[in-house]
């Protein structure tokens, strides 16, 4: 399974990757992005993945800004420290 991690803090991304590796060695993190722009660009250019880990506060804005510009039809797991974003995540069809 190919996963993409979008996270503005490198350590957190690495940590998440470590956790994923521990759960299942078959989960491969194929890309890291830290910004709305980089993520949008990659998916618009046809990046293929099975699962997206999406932090909400990114280096250049809020990850909800990705959706108007980019169609992403793979499952998304929102990862955030900000609980007030949860409601908005549901509205974007996220699952808690």
């Amino acid at each position, binding site marked *: 399974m190919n996963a993409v991690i979008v996270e503005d803090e490198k*350590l957190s991304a*690495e940590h998440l990757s*470590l956790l994923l590796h521990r759960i299942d060695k078959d989960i491969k993190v194929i890309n890291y992005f830290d910004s*709305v722009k980089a993520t949008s660009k990659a998916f618009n250019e046809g990046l293929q993945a099975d699962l997206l880990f999406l932090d909400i506060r990114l*280096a*250049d804005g809020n990850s909800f800004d990705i959706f108007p510009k980019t169609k992403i039809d793979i499952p998304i797991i929102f990862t955030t420290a900000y609980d007030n974003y949860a409601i908005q995540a549901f509205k974007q069809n996220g699952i808690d």
Partner: protein
Amino acid sequence: MVDRKNRFLYMFGIGLVISSLFKPLFFKSEPFFDDVFITIIIATVIILEGNLRIDTWLGQKYSWATLPKKRVIAQLLSLLIYSLFLLYLLMFVIHFLKSGKYDLMNPKMRQVLIPATFVTIAVLAIDIGYQFFKAWKQSLIEVEKYKAESANAQLQNLKNQLNPHFLFNNLSVLSSLVYQNQDKAVDFINELSKVYRYVLDNKNAELVSLQEELDFLAHYIYLLKIRFGENITFDIRIDESENSYLPPMCLQMLAENTIQHNETSNANPLKVSIFTENNRLIVSNPTQPRSDKSESSRTGLKNMKLRYQFFIDDQIEIIHTEKKFTVILPLIKKK
């Protein structure tokens, strides 16, 4: 104070009333409207205008709040002498107009001037009492206002002392670090504890030295660098830190602000400059706005301005252009 035109109309009205009252009282025999009637009006206007001007002039020299004793004496004496002298002059002119004689003192003058002295003293006493009361009330209001502002600023300051997310974010970083690099994790804990130690130590401090703030900032930046790596850099050039003070945590707040509002990505790292120039501390970064606007910092800057107001008249300057965001903090000198 009413504007000029209204002021003269108002005084003219008073003159009219005084003239209508005094004219029949002291110049019974003559017709009601004559040159004397007009002279009284003009004199009243001159006396009132002069009184107001003396009052304004004294107001600049001795304020009620700081030099009340001097003000009372100066106000009473100058206004009394001015009013009585003009009144005397008025009587003299009227007498001259009517009889054509230069009489330095005639019975009518005595008849008018003695009661007029008492009336003037009474009016002045009431006026002084009223002004004094007004100044006292005003100063009470100001004290209350400052108290409220100070309490509010302190509260905001406490609230802003490292927003709760700061601890959360850092703990989350720490939990990653513990797995990956134990030595670094220990350093990180030390730096984090130094940051909190500074906050606790300076919770009640009004001013801290620039050097202390810079040392604190170094710990804070260490934490940021662990989180954001090369995505944020600080260029710090401080030449003058001797005898320079500022309210605590201003620097940290400004550093935090830059991250709150700007892109700090791998593709677009943020470079923050901090330097001194002409007794000012300047924190500047290129404007690379995030697509989501966070609102929090305006209150932070406002609160910082408020905290500065307690110490100096010099104000914080915020220059926001399309290319650059700059905050200029005056450095406070202790005598």
